[in-house]
């Protein structure tokens, strides 16, 4: 026992454990999201969805898909810029994995509570754009090129509302650390239900506008319907992924679903109170509460996908520049004024 504790005091041992835990959670939860999406979409469209793989309810469908992709030939077009084409999925997945450094599951279960917290997450998360642009450019395919350009324009347009919505939360919490932001919504919060010490999440005390902006921008950053113009099937075949096949395509796929998890986790921390739930001890129930809130947001993302049609490219741009950015800036000012006055 003492040996185990001594081992965990070593930085490198602890780092390895953190890394393995995060990667297992990332891959495991991504598989769950993929399965949930297949099933939920099917039932919303009055279909059954996966049924045979694994015996009951098709639970092994994502695993079967992964195994199938592993065995597919890895084609690189003759015209393509081969090194860039091969590196692109790694860049995309790298940024997603790096975001998980600051995702907090309980007061102690966090890989590293950086002071820069939110800022780091948004900065590293947008490196994924580079992978998409690399994929689009290096494929030497007209559809890929258009898809890559659209993706880049979309991601820079929606980066801003997202960052500005997060900035309003930073104003209210007075810190960028993810753990600090959760604490600002916990029992010691500025706003509690009168007469009790139950903290209210930021979405209920003034940040509802920021929350909506953040979720819209998150959908756009993830290129999910209704913002999936970069891979619009009816116009661009499969956008920047047209030339990808087999395992490299799977890596982009994994990055997308892990990205859904990461975005939902950041939104949960910023707006829904993270691991905190009134009456439940965060160091025991924290991870479960966090997972429940994240699952809720993931469900909403899937729901939106089934509900809305795709926007047009210019509508997407004008929605960001004309409405979301001024709205987010106004939200920051109102939050700041209230913060100084209160």
């Amino acid at each position, binding site marked *: 026992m003492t040996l185990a504790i001594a081992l965990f005091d070593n930085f490198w041992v602890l780092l390895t454990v953190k890394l393995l835990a995060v990667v297992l959670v990332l891959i495991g939860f991504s598989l769950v999201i993929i399965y949930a999406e297949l099933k939920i979409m099917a039932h919303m469209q009055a279909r059954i969805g996966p049924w045979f793989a694994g015996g009951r309810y098709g639970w092994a469908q994502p695993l079967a898909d992964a195994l199938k992709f592993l065995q597919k030939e890895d084609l690189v077009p003759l015209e393509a810029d081969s090194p860039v084409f091969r590196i692109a999925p790694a860049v995309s997945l790298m940024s997603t994995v790096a975001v998980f450094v600051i995702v907090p599951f309980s007061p102690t279960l966090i890989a590293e509570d950086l002071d820069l917290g939110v800022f780091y997450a948004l900065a590293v998360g947008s490196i994924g754009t580079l992978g998409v642009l690399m994929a689009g450019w290096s494929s030497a395919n*007209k559809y890929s090129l258009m898809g890559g350009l659209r993706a880049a324009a979309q991601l820079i347009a929606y980066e801003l509302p997202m960052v500005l919505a997060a900035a309003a939360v930073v104003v209210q919490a007075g810190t960028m650390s993810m753990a600090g932001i959760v604490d600002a919504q916990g029992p010691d919060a500025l706003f509690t239900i009168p007469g009790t010490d139950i903290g209210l999440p930021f979405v209920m005390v003034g940040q509802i506008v920021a929350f909506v902006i953040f979720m819209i921008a998150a959908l756009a950053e993830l290129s999910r319907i209704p913002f999936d113009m970069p891979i619009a099937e009816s116009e661009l075949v499969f956008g920047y992924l047209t030339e990808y096949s087999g395992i490299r395509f799977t890596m982009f796929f994994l990055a997308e679903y892990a990205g859904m998890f990461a975005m939902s986790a950041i939104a949960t921390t910023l707006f829904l109170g993270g691991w905190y739930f009134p009456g439940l001890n965060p160091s025991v129930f924290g991870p479960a509460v966090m997972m429940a809130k994240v699952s809720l947001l993931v469900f909403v993302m899937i729901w939106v996908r089934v509900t809305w049609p795709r926007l047009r490219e210019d509508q997407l741009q004008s929605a960001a520049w004309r409405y979301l950015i001024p709205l987010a*800036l106004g939200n920051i000012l109102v939050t700041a004024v209230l913060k100084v006055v209160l």
Partner: protein
Amino acid sequence: MTQYFQDYITVAVFAAFGVLLVLIAVGASALLRPKNPTPAKSASYECGMDPVGGGWSQTQVRFYIYGLLFLIFDVEAVFIFPWAVRLEQLGGFALVEMAIFIAILLGGLAYAVRKGVLRWES
């Protein structure tokens, strides 16, 4: 080792593992997958036709103006974060300063919209 270095070593190791994950997956796949390229398979995909012209064709790039707008507002975001963290200590003065700064930028955005740079009809 200070906490600061530990923080960013963790970040570096996580990022490196993201790349490693792709290498592992591609390596594992290399053991299982066939490799049998033919000229037809290696051609760029263009809905079954032979590709017309090069892949890097000229396109009407409308997006550069968004790039310019983005630069301005992204620099602003970099200013806003430190301001947001210290706002409680800085008080009303910093608030007025930032309000003026944001008002100037919003004026710029309104000018861009009025100029029609966001309109796509040609």
